[in-house]
């Protein structure tokens, strides 16, 4: 296990922050590109997500893995900035009113940062107007809404409705465990993604198609 990228993947899987940091540094020092490091992070988190779905690990383990990923990203960010790859697109993201779940939303935000988006994370329990105001203020290309409760799906619908009342320059993407493509279509969102990795793909497609 000398390959630092392999080491990084393993460190994410078990949520070891320290090894994640040293492996990231070693990988970068020995010439790995930012993209390769991101690939490793994504592979590690993907495995974590799968084991969570399969009931092998629980929420705290997912959170600890996410922290390790964050640690690695902190080392990566200055490298990305130095290499002159400036984020071209801005994502404003948050969890809708009444809903305090943010683990999935945070993962999406992190992956999107890694994919070189400028990410403005507004937090949780957000009134529709707050999200709309922030989208305008930050000149968002994308607005991401998260809901984990069927109880707050109506709040997601209202938020999209408020935004779609007036023409706007951004695309709206939605997600969270109870959300489906059908629901996204029904409420007038522009896209839905099932997890963080596919959110990156979706986001890229949406910003290049506009």
């Amino acid at each position, binding site marked *: 296990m000398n390959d630092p990228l392999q080491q990084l993947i393993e460190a994410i899987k*078990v*949520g*070891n922050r320290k090894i994640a940091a040293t492996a990231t540094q070693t990988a970068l020092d020995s010439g790995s590109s930012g993209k390769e490091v991101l690939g490793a992070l994504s592979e590690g988190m993907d495995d974590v997500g799968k084991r969570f*779905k399969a*009931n092998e690990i*629980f*929420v*705290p*383990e997912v*959170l*600890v893995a996410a*922290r390790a990923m964050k640690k690695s990203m902190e080392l990566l960010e200055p490298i990305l900035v130095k290499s002159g790859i400036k984020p071209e697109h801005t994502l404003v993201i948050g969890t809708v*009113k*009444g*809903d*305090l779940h*943010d*683990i999935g939303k945070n993962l999406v935000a992190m992956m999107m940062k890694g994919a070189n988006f400028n990410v403005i994370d507004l937090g*949780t*329990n957000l009134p529709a107007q707050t999200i709309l105001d922030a989208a305008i203020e930050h000149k968002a290309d994308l607005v991401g809404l998260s809901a*984990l*409760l*069927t*109880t*707050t*799906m*109506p709040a997601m*619908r209202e938020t999209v409705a408020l935004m779609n009342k007036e023409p706007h320059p951004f695309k709206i993407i939605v997600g969270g*465990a*109870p959300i489906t493509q059908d*629901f996204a279509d*029904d409420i007038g969102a522009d896209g839905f993604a099932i997890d963080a990795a596919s959110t990156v793909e979706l986001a890229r497609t949406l910003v290049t198609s506009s």
Partner: protein
Amino acid sequence: MNQSSKKQSNGFNEMKAAPETLKYSVIACDVFKEELESLGGEKPPWSGIQYLEMGLHDQPDLLRKSISIALRKLEMNASIEAIVFVYGLCGTGLVGISPSRCPIIIPRAHDCVSILLGSPKRHSEILQKYPEAYFYSPGWVRGKRAPGPDREKHLRAFYTQRYGDDQELVDELLEADKESFAHHNCAAYVDLTQNEKAEDYCKSCAHSLGWKFRKLEGDPRLLHDLLYGPWDDKRFLIVQPGRSIALSTDSKVLREQ
């Protein structure tokens, strides 16, 4: 009597009007044990309750699988004519469940919180009013699942068994669990059974977390009528054999498809 005026073509009007002549069994989340024991009295009209573990709700797929297995088993008992589910939609845990022989009766509820508060409407109103509330009930307290000292003890024991040689990791996992409640600031206690012990425990959780304690009035009518009828369409969904439970994104919460 709360009769639904809508004509139903499913032939279960009799069942709704007179569940007392019907032989039905109950599948319930273990979180409702206290409430069901108090509502059931000495001689409940249903034939048997099967409780499923409340922790299943963390994994909607597993919940769905476990309920489906329990349902199949009950349906093999030829004397059972219908099955009452003491569950809400529970995320999407109940979506896709389909009876093969017995109609299922399920309340239009998002989860146990809607059921204890009496309606999804009241649940939504309270959620919008106190978004930072974490709900407690006697069942949540017994299950050691709500944030507080019991959960911490339970989780530490679990992770020590799993990663015992790495205490640093165990500490970090517990810290992460705590962090996941950081947005909450209120323990909201809902009880239909005057369980003082559970209420006191909830107060002690609020105290140890630095949260407010708030007692919410429970409303037993939805749960009562789920168990005894009438099963009007406004508050209950009846899923016919061959059909399945689906999410309804309007105020009806559930539909069959």
